[in-house]
């Protein structure tokens, strides 16, 4: 059954490409430490900012070296793990919180809905930085704290979009029917409404994974990123931006990595949406 799914999935040329890209990134993330030519933290400041294909005394630096003479390719591979973790884990947190809020707020418009939407609006008005600073001050900017910050500051989009869809959906006949049949509210939410908002959720998630990876970069830009011994694509771009005038490769390769990963994730997300949506499947026969 799984293979059938995969077969159907890869019928789309684009989706297959996306799968290959994401597969490669995941391989890098899982087995990176055995694939890289250099220790990602080994530095040689005499060989700093060397261009791609630079052949150093200890080997070929495929994508050049950074401001401290570290091998960019090795750091990219190792960085894949952290960046993916940041992107996926924070999206899971956001999604769970946001979709739950959105479902409830859309269905129970009166009190619970009003309250949850107020929480949403409060969240939206609190500058992301204020929250990040408070957390950084109290518990320090560790990797998991940053994931938590990102997760807990980006669920609003889910909540509002899901709510607006539920508002429209719940007047449909079959939901009304379920309601009159006495099916419990959690049941209606999970069995009948959740599947219907899934396509939107997938679109938002695939976009948000990318956004989270970039957000981590923005945190680095603002000096609140993950600790330096953990290379991430975001930090690499943020730190590399100072060299764009004289060493373009330092920030460009991590940028390209994010770009390709985002495309991969989106292509997969697109295909999944098409396949998971029952109405669409019926259409395509």
């Amino acid at each position, binding site marked *: 059954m799984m293979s059938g799914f995969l077969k159907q999935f890869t019928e789309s040329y684009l989706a297959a490409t996306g799968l290959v890209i994401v597969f490669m990134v995941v391989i890098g993330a899982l087995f990176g430490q055995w694939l890289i030519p250099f220790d990602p933290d080994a530095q040689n400041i005499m060989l700093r900012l060397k261009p791609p294909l630079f052949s150093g005394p200890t080997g070929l630096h495929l994508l050049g070296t950074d401001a401290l003479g570290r091998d960019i390719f090795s750091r990219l591979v190792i960085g894949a793990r952290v960046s993916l973790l940041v992107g996926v884990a924070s999206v899971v947190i956001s999604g769970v919180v946001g979709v739950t809020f959105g479902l409830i707020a859309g269905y129970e418009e009166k009190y619970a809905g009003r309250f949850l939407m107020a929480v949403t*609006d409060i969240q939206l008005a*609190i500058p992301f930085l204020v929250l990040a600073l408070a957390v950084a001050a109290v518990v320090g900017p560790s990797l998991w704290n940053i994931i938590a910050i990102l997760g807990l500051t980006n669920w609003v989009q889910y909540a509002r979009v899901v709510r607006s869809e539920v508002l429209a959906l719940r007047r449909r006949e079959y939901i009304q029917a379920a309601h009159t049949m006495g099916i419990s509210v959690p049941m209606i939410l999970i069995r009948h409404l959740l599947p219907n908002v899934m396509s*939107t959720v997938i679109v938002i998630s695939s976009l948000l994974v990318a956004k989270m990876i970039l957000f981590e970069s923005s945190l680095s830009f603002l000096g609140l990123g993950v600790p330096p011994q953990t290379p991430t694509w975001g930090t690499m771009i943020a730190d590399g931006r100072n060299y764009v005038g004289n060493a373009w490769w330092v920030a460009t390769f991590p940028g390209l990595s994010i770009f390709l990963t*985002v*495309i991969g994730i989106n292509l997969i997300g697109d295909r999944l949406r098409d396949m998971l949506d029952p109405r669409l499947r019926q259409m395509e026969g």
Partner: protein
Amino acid sequence: MAAFVLSRLFYAILVVFGVSVAVFFLIRMGGDPTSLFLPPDAPVAEIERFRHLMGFDRPLLEQYLAFLGKALRGDFGMSLRYNEPAMALVLDRAPATLALSGSALALSIVIAVPLGIMAAAFRGTVIDRASLVISLIGQSFPAFWLAIMLILLFSETFRILPPSGRGTWQHLIMPSIVLATYSTAIITRLLRSSMIEVLQADYIRTARGKGLSEWRIVMKHGLRNAAIPTITVIGLQVGALLGGAVITEEVFAYPGIGRLAIQAIANRDFTVVQAFVIVMSITIVTINLLVDLSYGLLDPRMRKA
């Protein structure tokens, strides 16, 4: 109608109050500004004296009640750094940020709406894929990176746009583009997916059956029904735009609210941060209200609710 306005007003007050409480305590968790104000070699006694004079050593609840009491009378305190009324500082910057986020939002909509419709109408074709790639490019580079690249290209290399500051409309071009990229991507993608969904619905098939032209179907039925989630997202993007303005304004040295806020946060200029979030929350509540009202206009079924 009166009941509606009243409940909305009550709701707005609830949100603004909630935000002010949350931010009041959150920003203070990151330490008070004493160490940022005094020279690094200031002796301990001097630090304590300053803290006491500023009132930072008092219990948080007491500080909050003092703030609330004054805020209710319209006094949001003096900026610690600028030594000027905090609310006036924030409101002075508002027009600059409004101009920037307004032009960015306009740019987003102008690009995203046609792109999203075309992608849905011509699903699976080259147009659809092109829209995918365009929207992906926009969101695959961090805003600050895109900003720096634009500056490198248009200010350093071609020298046709001013790299920073405010004054002429040319100053708005690069910041608007940077600010608009993410919103453009998300509006395009969401409009496309909503449209596709709507176009499969029964009444659209009925319309097709009636022999209406595809274009008419897309524009009349599809767009109207896909508009609700799209407007929700656009409404959300306003909040995101104001948030994104922080980094954009910083890179382009654009004197708006975002830049004021980022500096106020870094300097623990509590009163300015508080005034800023109050303005933010009022803006967001207002936009949500407009979005909710537009649902009624767009969807007759909801008008009764």
